[in-house]
């Protein structure tokens, strides 16, 4: 299991206040113990099937395939209970928290999908949940705030700094520093200090394992390209990881916002430099003095200045490629997939769709392109309808 030492190449590590260190070491030991444990994996598998609705389909999209000139498949994480891939990670971490005897769950959330997944798991496992969410995100993802509260979670609006995911994460850290003894902090992506990037990747890799089996069954071969959006990078690493040793092109799509030249974007791997935020060394959007920059994205879930350390390694060793698409192209992809295939993607996932639309010329008719459809767009329709109304 690469990443086991907490490093991905030079990236990763545990850059956290001393108060957290004991809890991280305890978590690492607990995770390594359950990772190969038959009983734990049986329990997780049955939750994935009965509760989360796995295995998710791999949908061939005939209409857009014809239009774009390649064979497009969607890995349907939008059909996971809760509406996104986030629950894959939460079922794993929630079960782990329970095994560790923790009494309270906390999480940060951007789009609210991770918060919703945490609320679901808290309700199902009978543990109280508190979710930190940037005040701006509580407004642009109001539906998810209501869903979390409906399932009994407490949503705490964060008013410091940029009032988005970055500061929600900082607040969750501060909570955990004070409550490590009885609280489990469920990080929602492959970011944060070791063992989170490793652990979240292992829980999300179910996406890639299923996709691999299914595409081989249907097409008799591996795909040519896999495309996924990258915020923290969990849905992308989840689908990439089981293909790392294969001759398959891996493409991660970041939020280009209003354009990288404008400075209003969240394209960390495309425009950042190595730095340390929230416990990990990875690429980071920062100014000349090492202060973390404010970010922008049309999608709250990608609006984060950092990225998982394993992606930083895959960028440097060129095993994966990273590109950015702009907000305007994302909106177009959002409508395109809805109209042509009857599938409304999350704005985050629409970034991956937009890349394939814009770069259709790269692919041949027989090329198989798998897009990870990380979530469904219901949470975004009210914001998008407003945006469409004023353009």
């Amino acid at each position, binding site marked *: 299991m690469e990443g086991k030492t907490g490093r991905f190449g030079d990236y990763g*590590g545990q*850059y956290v*206040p001393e*108060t957290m260190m*004991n809890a991280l070491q305890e978590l690492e030991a607990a995770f390594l113990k359950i990772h190969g444990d038959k009983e734990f994996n049986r329990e997780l598998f049955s939750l994935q099937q009965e509760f989360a609705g796995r295995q998710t389909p791999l949908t061939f999209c005939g209409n857009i395939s014809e239009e774009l000139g390649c064979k497009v498949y969607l890995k349907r994480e939008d059909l996971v209970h809760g509406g996104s891939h986030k629950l894959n990670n939460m079922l794993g971490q929630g079960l782990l928290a329970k095994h560790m005897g923790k009494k309270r769950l906390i999480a940060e959330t951007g789009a609210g999908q991770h918060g919703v997944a945490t609320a679901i798991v808290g309700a199902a496992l009978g543990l109280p949940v508190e979710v930190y969410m940037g005040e701006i995100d509580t407004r642009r993802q109001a539906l998810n705030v209501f869903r979390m509260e409906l399932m009994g979670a407490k949503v705490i609006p964060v008013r410091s700094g940029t009032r988005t995911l970055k500061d929600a994460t900082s607040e969750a850290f501060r909570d955990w*520093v004070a409550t490590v003894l009885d609280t489990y902090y469920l990080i929602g992506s492959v970011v944060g200090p070791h063992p989170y990037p490793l652990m979240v990747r292992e829980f999300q890799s179910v996406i890639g394992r299923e996709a691999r089996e299914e595409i081989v069954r249907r097409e008799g071969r591996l795909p040519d390209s896999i495309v996924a959006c990258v915020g923290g990078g969990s849905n992308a690493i989840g689908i990439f990881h089981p293909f790392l040793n294969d001759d398959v092109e891996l493409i991660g799509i970041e939020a280009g916002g209003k354009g990288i030249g404008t400075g209003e974007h969240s394209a960390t791997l495309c425009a950042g430099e190595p730095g340390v935020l929230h416990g990990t*060394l990875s690429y980071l959007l920062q100014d000349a003095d090492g*202060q*973390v920059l404010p970010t922008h994205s049309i999608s709250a879930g990608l609006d984060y200045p950092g990225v998982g350390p394993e992606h930083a390694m895959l960028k440097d060793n060129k095993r994966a490629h990273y590109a950015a698409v702009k907000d305007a192209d994302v909106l177009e992809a959002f409508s395109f997939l809805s109209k042509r295939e009857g599938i409304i993607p999350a704005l985050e996932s629409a970034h991956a769709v937009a890349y394939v639309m814009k770069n259709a010329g790269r692919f041949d008719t027989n090329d198989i392109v798998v897009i990870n459809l990380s979530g469904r767009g219901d949470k975004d329709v009210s914001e998008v309808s407003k945006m469409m109304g004023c353009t």
Partner: protein
Amino acid sequence: MGRIEDVFRERKSPAFMGFTVAGDPCQKTSIRIAKALIAGGTDILELGVPFSDPVADGPTIQRADERALSSGTTTDTIFGIVREIRKESAVPIVFLKYYNTVLHRGIRDFYREAHESGVDGILIADMPVEESEEVTRIAAACDIAPIFLIAPTTTDARIRKIVKQAEGYLYLVAVLGVTGVRKTVSSDASDLLRRVPMHTDLPLALGFGISSPEHAGACAAGGAGTIVK
């Protein structure tokens, strides 16, 4: 480094460590605040280096960091503040900061410039001993004391690892949590004051939530050579 040791040499009473964020609310006033702390008798001046995402700090220091950054404070202005204080005072100066601004400048450059401007010690709040090897080596080469935190959750095994790397003094975190005002001093503080001296002769400082002269008095009574922030 000599300046920090001088503070503790043959010391009978507890030392006082005053803290302010460099550049808060602006460079000029910040220098005045630091000088006032020194005039008021601080034995060691602890300067917070503002960071955009101070995860170990509560709202008071978060806001101070925000004020400092929005008035244009940079690493250069902070070294300038130190040089300005050094013109008038030989009080030891210790930076309390986060790793990214060191890393981004280049660890070697940061420590060299810190030493040249008159800094005596550096505590990086998000750098546990496991990640500190390179920084500690460079600190030694630049004659800067690497200061480490010890928290209520730090096990004795970790304390033994930390005291091997640490110099100057050990910074004991008096509460489980972030910086900021508390009503009382927790029992965690006395637990640390009992456990840590079993592993080291380094002086012990106690910080986080020490909010009043009464708190300071209680801490000082609990452990010899205690510094209070």
